[in-house]
């Protein structure tokens, strides 16, 4: 084995270095994949933070909020618009930052879950 490495170092130094670099990359992505899986499985991260590309229906599903609750929070006249609209656009149309919109959604979600808990016998 050592003979082989010596031979490679003498004749194919660049490729041997590339090979070692690739091994480092394998380790890097291995660790990142593992930590991403841990993050995904963690119940604390079930409600993903809103991002401008999301649609009202998407938020409704991710936060398990019924359309009639979410509609007013996102300033929608109907419960769910027929055409798609990104919430980035909703925020811009209503002069809100994404953080302010996030707060509105979080508050509505908390109120909804509290009400559900109260109504449970």
């Amino acid at each position, binding site marked *: 084995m050592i003979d082989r490495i010596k031979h490679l170092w003498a004749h194919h130094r660049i*490729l041997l270095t590339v090979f070692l670099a690739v091994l480092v990359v394998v380790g*890097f992505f291995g660790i990142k994949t593992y930590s991403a899986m841990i993050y995904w499985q963690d119940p604390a991260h079930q409600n993903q933070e809103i991002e401008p*590309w999301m649609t009202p229906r998407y938020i409704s*599903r991710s936060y398990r909020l019924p359309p009639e609750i979410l509609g007013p929070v996102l300033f929608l006249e109907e419960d769910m618009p027929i055409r*798609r609209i990104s919430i980035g656009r909703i925020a811009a149309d209503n002069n809100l930052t994404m953080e302010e919109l996030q707060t509105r959604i979080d508050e509505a979600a908390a109120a909804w879950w509290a009400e559900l808990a109260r109504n449970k016998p």
Partner: protein
Amino acid sequence: MSDLLLALVADYGVPIVFCVTFLSCLALPVPSSLLMLASGGFAATGDLYLTSVFAAAFTGAVLGDNMGYWIARGLGDKMLVWFEKRPKRSALKRKSEVFMNKWGGSSVFFSCWLVAPLGPYVNYVSGITKFKWTRFVVWGILGEIVWVTLYVGLGYTFADNITSIAGVLGNASGFLTAIGVAVGLGLWLWKVSKPRLDKRRARPHI
């Protein structure tokens, strides 16, 4: 970039999915995997139709693959003189042709989905080495069916948390690709380091 493209999907729908998978097959740095996951998610919530997401992503990918193949094939013809100028270059080209003849089908198939970051380059190599087009198309179509079904399907299934699943898949894809490169390069290095070893071992017997 990702956020902008995803917002475009939310606003304009499947034509954006088509454009992005097309461009990603030409090695342009567009977040096609994330976009397919999100489109699958949009299909699950009712913002898009699952069949049109699938059709757009698949058509874009197959057309992109073939565009890459034919560009490289045209370039390969023009670069013939350049390849023949140096013995090392022409040897590399011949070796690639032998490799593609033997392993071309599976290379095209797996580079579509399992080691997707290598996909565009396999398309280019296929074109330059004049890999048989019918084989390229058949394996490419099968590979893209797997790629699109996998990503759109996962997006559809895990629609409530696209960001997390995208993180897992993005890293897993990098991990598998790096392993693929490491195994390929490792086997080659192992092979070229052998003769010297044999000579050394053989010496005492002389």
